[in-house]
């Protein structure tokens, strides 16, 4: 789980750098584009294919929310 968190932090830091604005950890202020990038991050790095009844955009707006999705849906939660 620590590994997922570290990788996610790294990815969110790159998102924040692209936006030129910091991201708070408990409530990620993600715009539409950033949300899509988070979805694609989950798809590409963990093979997670989310269905719309599995997830709400708001689930992706916190570090814990994203980690919980990784834990729930990733194939044995193994990073690719």
């Amino acid at each position, binding site marked *: 789980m620590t590994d997922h968190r570290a990788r996610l*932090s790294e990815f*969110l*830091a*790159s*998102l*924040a*750098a*692209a936006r*030129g604005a*910091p*991201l*708070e*950890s408990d409530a*990620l*202020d993600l*715009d*539409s*584009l950033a*949300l*899509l990038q988070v*979805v*694609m991050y989950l*798809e590409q790095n963990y093979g997670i*294919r*989310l*269905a*719309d*009844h599995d*997830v*709400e*955009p*708001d689930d992706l707006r916190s*570090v814990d929310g994203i980690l919980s999705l990784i834990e729930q849906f990733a194939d044995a939660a193994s990073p690719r």
Partner: protein
Amino acid sequence: MQPALAKPAAPSPVVLAARSLLGRLWITVFAGAALIPAFGYTALAFAVAIGLASFLPAWRRSILSALAILVCLVNQNLKLASGPSILSANWVPLGALALGAAWILTLSIWTRLFARLPRWLVRHSLLLLHGAALALILALWAFRQLAVLKAFAAGALCTLVPELLWRSAYWIKWRGRETGRAPIWANLFAILPFVGAGGVPIGKGPAYFGKHEVRDADRLALAQVEGVKLLALALLWQAADAVLACVLWRFKAEWLPTWIVPAHRLLPTMDLLLRLPMRFPLWQRWACLYGELFHAILVLAVYSHTIVGIFCLLGFHIPRNMRSPLLATTILDFWGRYYFYFKELLMDFWFFPVFLRTARLPALWRTMLATVSAAFVGNLYYHLVLYWPALASGDWMTFRNQATARVIYCALLAAGLCGSFARSLKRGSSVSPAPLPRRLFQVLVVSAFFALIHVWNFIDPVIPVARRLALWQALLPWR
């Protein structure tokens, strides 16, 4: 800059002051006074609720639900500043109240059965909701010749359905994922349109409110400071809008001094410009578009800061609805800053589901499809629901004018957002802040885009599409 966990900062002196007994009393009195322009004497009920919720946080939700019922019962013609009215003057109050109560009860019972219903039925509950609403409107249209039904349709039902539709949709989404018991009373405030949200649920639904509910005294004080800021901003923007309307169009608010009124109207109103575009010089045509956009932004700022401010004061620290849209440097950025909760509505019910369902497509195609589904299809559907009264009462001409203008507006918006998305995806993470002159140019281009498409967003059902098109042609310098 790491988005890693950060320790909460020590409370600032302002938060400490807001936490004190005197601070809470001051906030209550300020809120009551600041809400008078929007709510009249009902502001007193809001102030009492805010005061009670400050001192009895455990009872917050009950206080808020009681307030919501009281305001819905008392204010039958509630209007927030110059924002949209939640109840039209000609509605049938008792019929609408009864219908509203029946609607909410049915929704509550239906969603309580989710645990026992087959999974596919639960998953399609949103479709059922929209199907039921559509069936209702078609039935009203089919029987529009019946006088009683017509009065009821025009007055009560058509006002109520757009108000409750999206709140119910959020309720269904919430109950579809919530496994535990959730008493209807504690969440009633999330479905009643008591603050006048005009169809868009500001604060979304119970799940979102639950996520943003403050849990301790420090966070309550922080939320209340934000609430005070927002109410003060709402008053400020209301004054600014009054001055703007006076200086540009000679619409004088009662409280403004006479010396501020110019001898002549500086610009035509949009209404006048749409009717007689060639009567005014080119600079006035363009300036009018910008003036109307500023006016629309100020009106929405007053309206949404008031509503978000109320929820913050009551202990729900939800994000602002509007965040300086005129500073946006891309169309996408403007769209996110202008009307956050409408953007979220389209995101939650259109954009995100489409994006998830098209995982096999390349990123650009997925994004385009999702954008068109939200900005065009979803946006159009949302507004067609608002235009139901005209359709139900058989006023086909009004409905046609409104719907055609909206189709064009949504198509233009979708095209603009698709272009903006494509540029952003192409830039990826290699973006670096543009120098100031370039940023100013970008701001100007973005605001010009929204000022131009506002011609199709301008609410006047009598104006046909041809006139709006003629205004666009009149904006060309060689005309």
